[in-house]
């Protein structure tokens, strides 16, 4: 009993430490910048507060464009993935074809070799396909998802076959069965996958940095990096904090609102 109390106390301490950078981000982004101020690092919210840093950050970056590109990228990737992973997931769950486990292992290879490792050959590939410097070029390597196929295989497996049998006896085609029975029942699996997919691609940096050269195709992370480098030399920490908040807040807010779904789907990234 006593040890449990101590453990909880230590965990709470870790929680406070973990929170500190976010607390600084929140406080500093609201505190007007004044050169040479002593309480730059103070976590204690002390006034006067204002939105000036957010306005400066918004005006010195291209946030509307970056938001738009990031949203288009995440939605586009997800839309294609939904099709590829549910089709392949169904095949692995329901059809007993020769070499199934070998093909499945080939799929899982992608988990070990994420596109970031293969930047050099992938770059040559999208140049070859004429997709360099476009959102489609950033999206292309993510259109197939081993993780998604794995998740959907598990989801389809957990649905009893009786439903399909009954529909087949009633004369439904395979496509009808998939559309009207399996996909609606697999909804929780697809939703979990959507959460993981969107958060992964919202946060991606190295590949979008290399796959795109013109400013009009930049995403939030790439924009933030150049923005930070520019503001760092000027010592405008309040503006950096505000810019960082603009990039991080959508997912942070989404996470705290949908916390259960997030944790459940992140934990399912591989177990079971």
């Amino acid at each position: 009993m006593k040890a449990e109390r101590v453990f909880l106390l230590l965990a709470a301490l870790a929680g406070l430490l973990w929170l500190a950078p976010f607390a600084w981000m929140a406080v500093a982004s609201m505190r007007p910048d004044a050169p040479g101020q002593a309480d730059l690092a103070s976590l204690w919210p002390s006034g006067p507060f204002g939105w000036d840093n957010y306005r400066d950050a918004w005006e010195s970056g291209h946030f509307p464009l970056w938001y738009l590109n990031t949203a288009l990228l995440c939605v586009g990737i997800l839309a294609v993935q939904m099709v590829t992973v549910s089709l392949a997931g169904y095949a692995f769950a329901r059809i007993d074809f020769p070499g199934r486990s070998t093909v499945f292992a080939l799929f899982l290879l992608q988990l070990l070799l994420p596109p970031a490792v293969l930047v050099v050959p992938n770059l040559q590939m999208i140049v070859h396909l004429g997709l360099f410097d476009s959102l489609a070029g950033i999206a292309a390597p993510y259109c197939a998802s081993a993780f998604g196929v794995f998740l959907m295989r598990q989801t389809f497996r957990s649905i009893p076959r009786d439903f399909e049998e009954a529909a087949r006896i009633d004369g439904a085609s395979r496509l009808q069965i998939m559309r009207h029975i399996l996909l609606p029942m697999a909804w929780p699996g697809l939703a979990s996958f959507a959460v993981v997919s969107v958060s992964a691609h919202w946060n991606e940096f190295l590949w979008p940095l290399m796959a795109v050269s013109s400013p009009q195709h930049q995403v939030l992370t790439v924009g933030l990096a150049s923005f930070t480098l520019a503001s760092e030399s000027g010592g405008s920490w309040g503006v950096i904090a505000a810019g960082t908040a603009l990039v991080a807040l959508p997912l942070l807010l989404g996470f705290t609102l949908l916390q259960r779904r997030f944790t459940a789907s992140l934990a399912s990234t591989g177990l079971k």
Partner: protein
Amino acid sequence: MAGEDVRIGLARASRENMVAAVLLAPSLLFLAAFTYWPVFGVVLRSLTEQRFGQSASWGFGNFIRLFADTHFHRVLVNTVLYAVGTIVPSLVLALFLAVALSKPGRLTGLLRTVLMLPQMVPLVAAAALYVFVFLPGEGLLDHYLAYFGRYATNWLGSPDLALPSVILITIWKNTGYYMLFFLAGLAGIPADLLEAARIDGANGWRRFRDVTLPLLGPTFAFVGVIAMVNALVQIDHIIVMTGGGPSDSTNMILYYIYQQAEQNLDLGLASAATVVCVGVLLALALLSLRRLERGIHYES
């Protein structure tokens, strides 16, 4: 009659195979273009020697150049230090936090959420925050360390401290994520096993060491692989914060690849380094695959 049945059965089986092929085709197409072919292509490219004004020839020249490069020696050492320095503390801490927060409750739920927050922000955003955390003198860390009589440490600017500083960010960022897997693993341990051990007189530590820990083996193997891939792949903060420096002290394999490809335009060297990186990942995966497989048998 029987022959007819077999024929119908065979026709049906081949029809099923066709359906499977059609369903798998979209995924396989993308995997072929962006996973399989690139691995093959990068091996080919690494074995191609291109000299200015001459036609390309085959050979191990790129690998010879790579392993002769003193920068690359430093990169290999750094990558190992970074991998060990991030994986071991993150996993130990994640397991500890999972044990401490395994019981449901308002406070434990809140703490789990807080510890998960860093996972939800881009590594680039985390880097932007930590540039200030590590700011000498005025930064968050120095501001509070000053109370303990320590002033103005050049965290990111000194070759000795830069790598540990970068490691600290990674631990902060990933520990909460790994904790989730340990929480799931702990929840999967049958309560009656722990109860039986208790009745046999095993104290809390013995129960943890002899029952919980062995049963978490598959979780360790799985999280270990994820952490390994992360250690090799996540270098966004290096790009933003240190640029591999000072004097190569935070240069790591993927950053080196990025440097060769983007800055030096040396695709031969970049390809050879990629082949080394892919080889290491596959070898480590094969090693842990066995343990993982055993774990999956155990779980089902």
